[in-house]
């Protein structure tokens, strides 16, 4: 593995050191190596083959907004690309230093600054880790209500930059629903404060910067909505005959106006994997006899048989008689939780669901972050995996599910669950598995699966990301996604990043960049 030396001038480093001090930056090769990728699976495929991603030239750890502002101004003078970095949990390659430059790790700005119990608001610096933030809030009797499966490894800045969603988003909303105010250091080198304009007058700067993935500026601080910890939690698992009735149930539940914390519907293969949890007695009982041969299939060499011939195996798996599992979690005052459960159970019974009791829900909750641990054993044994999360309105849900499944399943093993639900629609979370070959072959297969999946999604009218963001991975689809609306983003980009240094090569393929290359 060869590390190209950083392309930096002594003069630049002197300026850098004047801003952040001698311990505030690193040009060490090992640090550059460790900042060359986030958690996107294309990079994981590459590291499996000891292939590098582009290295940043330097990593910087600013301690406060002023230092960061000085860094941006230095970068403007030296035309140095700047890439924000939080926890490195991103799965779209949004923090890869595509053209080298300066990675700005925000983790030294890690404070929960204020908890305003009168207005139920919390102010925190962007570098705080999601889990730390939630723990500190819970220590004080509050919750952000944001529980993404990346909570252990994502930062608040990352949540905001990529429009993260937690597993309880049905109740608490996504991060863009929680954000009230932001402090941003833009690519102009200015500090911009935003304000809360929800249900009121004003230009919504929060919604410009949230989701901008570092291409307009650095989010340094945020004011967020918080809630008192719920006094009561309840869980339920139900089994539906198929996805069609399951989707219908989730739609009806959401359109009653109720706000259960978690509503997740697993398709047949995903249901099967769910049963893999050791403690999952309740559901394994229900599908006794099925679980064991299929578990074997997944755990043994026959998995590789399945992965080498997905065209043959996928149709079989997709028609397993496991049924589709619905997981429900309720939170709140006990009286309301009971009523909510009663209403929802009626809806599900009307659609022929089988009540599996509270066990599957509890097991789900206990293992809510486990899914992220599953990738390592798979890669280790020679398979690659990734997930695609898309969203649409209810009228298109079933079509979206079928179209994407069909488009992808001849190339890989694919499963899905309806992961987040709203009155007007929801999101599907597809997981795909394929076997690793040589580097070139694996990368090509990976790209092909993504292309098939995303194209099917766009053709059906879905949005190509619900909560992972775009990054490097999906940027070539964004022009089609936004249509003429991209003109708005380009205007923001012109204004906030006139020097083109903010996280270049992410979010959208800028026409300006293309033109320059042609010229």
């Amino acid at each position, binding site marked *: 593995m060869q590390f190209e030396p950083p392309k930096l001038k002594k003069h630049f480093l002197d300026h850098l050191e004047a801003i952040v001090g001698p311990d505030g930056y690193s040009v060490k090769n090992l640090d550059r*190596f460790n900042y060359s990728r986030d*958690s996107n699976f294309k990079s994981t495929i590459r590291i499996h083959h*000891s292939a590098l991603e582009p290295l940043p030239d330097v990593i910087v750890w600013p301690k406060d907004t002023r230092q960061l502002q000085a860094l941006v101004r230095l970068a403007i003078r030296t035309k140095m690309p700047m890439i924000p970095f939080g926890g490195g949990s991103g799965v779209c390659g949004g923090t890869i230093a595509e053209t080298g430059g300066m990675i700005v790790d925000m983790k030294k700005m890690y404070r929960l600054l204020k908890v305003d119990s009168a207005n139920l608001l919390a102010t925190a610096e962007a570098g705080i*880790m999601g889990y730390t933030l939630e723990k500190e809030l819970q*220590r004080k009797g509050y919750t952000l209500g944001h529980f993404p499966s990346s909570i*252990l490894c994502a930062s608040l800045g990352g949540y905001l930059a990529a429009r993260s969603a937690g597993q309880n988003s049905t109740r608490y909303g996504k991060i863009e629903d929680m954000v009230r105010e932001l402090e941003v250091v833009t690519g102009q080198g200015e500090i911009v404060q935003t304000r809360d304009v929800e249900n009121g007058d004003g230009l919504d700067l929060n919604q410009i910067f949230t989701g901008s993935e570092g291409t307009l500026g650095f989010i340094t601080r945020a004011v967020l909505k918080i809630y008192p910890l719920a006094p009561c939690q309840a869980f339920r698992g139900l089994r539906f005959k198929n996805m069609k009735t399951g989707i219908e149930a989730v739609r009806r539940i959401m359109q009653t106006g109720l706000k259960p914390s978690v509503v997740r519907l697993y398709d047949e293969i995903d249901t099967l994997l769910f049963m893999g949890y050791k403690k999952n007695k309740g559901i394994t009982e229900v599908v006794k006899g099925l679980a064991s041969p299929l578990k074997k299939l997944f755990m043994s060499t026959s998995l590789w048989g399945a992965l080498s011939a997905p065209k043959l195996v996928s149709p079989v798996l997709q028609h397993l008689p496991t049924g589709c599992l619905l997981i429900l979690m309720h939170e709140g005052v006990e009286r309301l939780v009971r009523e909510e459960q009663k209403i929802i159970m009626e809806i599900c019974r009307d659609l022929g669901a089988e009540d599996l009791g509270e066990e599957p829900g509890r097991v789900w909750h206990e293992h809510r972050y486990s899914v*992220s641990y599953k990738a*390592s054993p798979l890669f280790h044994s020679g398979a690659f995996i990734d997930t695609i999360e898309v969203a649409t309105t209810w009228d298109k849900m079933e079509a979206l599910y079928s179209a994407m499944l069909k488009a992808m399943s001849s190339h890989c093993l694919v499963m899905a669950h309806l992961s987040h639900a709203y009155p007007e629609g929801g999101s599907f979370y597809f997981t795909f598995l394929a076997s690793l070959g040589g580097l070139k072959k694996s990368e090509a297969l990976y790209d092909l699966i993504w292309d098939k999946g995303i194209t099917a999604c766009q053709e059906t009218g879905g949005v190509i990301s619900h909560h992972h963001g775009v990054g490097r991975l999906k940027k070539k689809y964004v022009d089609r996604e936004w249509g003429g609306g991209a003109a708005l983003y380009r205007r923001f980009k012109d204004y906030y990043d006139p020097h083109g240094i903010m996280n270049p090569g992410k979010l959208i393929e800028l026409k300006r960049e293309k033109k320059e290359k042609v010229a």
Partner: protein
Amino acid sequence: MLETFSKLMEYCTYCPRLCQSACPVAMTEGNESFSPWGLMQTLNQLRKGEIPLDSELAALSYKCLTCKACTTQCEHGNEIPPVLHEVRKEAVARELAPPEISGFLNKFHKHNNPFSKDLLQKLKNILPSKYFDMNPQTIYYPSCTTIAKCPEVVHDTFELFEKLKIDFVGVYPEAIQCCGYPLISGGMEYDFIDLAEVNFHALKKYKTIVSGSPACVYTLRETYKKYDFGLPGKVVTINEFLEPYLHNINYRLKKSMRTKLMYHDPCYLSRYLNEVSLPRELIAHVSGYQPMEFFDHGECTHCSGQGGCYSITSKEASDEIARRRLEEVVEKKVQTLVTQCPSCVHKFRKNSERLVVKDLISYLNDSIEGVKE
């Protein structure tokens, strides 16, 4: 050298760094390279022969407290410290370890302890001579950090023994020296083996060895075994030793001891020795109250910042780790912090002016007046 760890290292390499928010080093220094993920994915490249072991990589291997918070977080149960120990050993052998490590070793060799002081002399000033002359079967093994940094714990231990009429415990008198924990943890294996051999011969005659330092207990009980110096007698924590006496003896309690306190689980006690409920039971036993808890407690505790030679190579960050841990104590408006590890006691005292930091033994001794006649 690392092939035995290949599965673990591969798992870490492919993991979206799920343990990082549990890692005090990663969270305090903010550098991905120092997270268990960064350490393992980098060393995995060393294993695969993609990068060489140089001083930069050697220094990286010291960016760990060996507190195993990551292991608790990891659903695969991956243990990072053994991997790092291998690299540190190699680094020391090839003279690639950070200068602080060789400096430490020089200092250590003066009196066979990390403090360059004659600790036996100091111990003799703390304890009456009778404890040195009794030829006992059970001895108390005071850790060097206890003698050097919190000597009152030694005093309180024997005072408590007196109050509870425990009269058969002597003190380890042989040219008092370290158990070797910092040596083995820092990768100084040869020096550790020499020391362990001497200690083994001095300690093998005792039936029971009691220590108030979890790292000493772990080293004497577990690490010595790995180097064929397994002690024939029992090595027990002070709590394990005291528990039956505290439950069976009828003693008087001081009423004034019912102050609000928090208990900090030392990582070696809770994660290496699995002693989580016993200290709490003892506190409840003498005070009638459960101690207040940190949000991260028990096996999910946070290291005080002193472990694994990290405080030698990364002084400032190590203090910062302690200060961050203490924030929660201040937030809860608690004045007394009880823990049971001389390194934790020392670290917390060093990083807090106002807080009363006590070893659990001192707390017990303060609470108990004496046996009812």
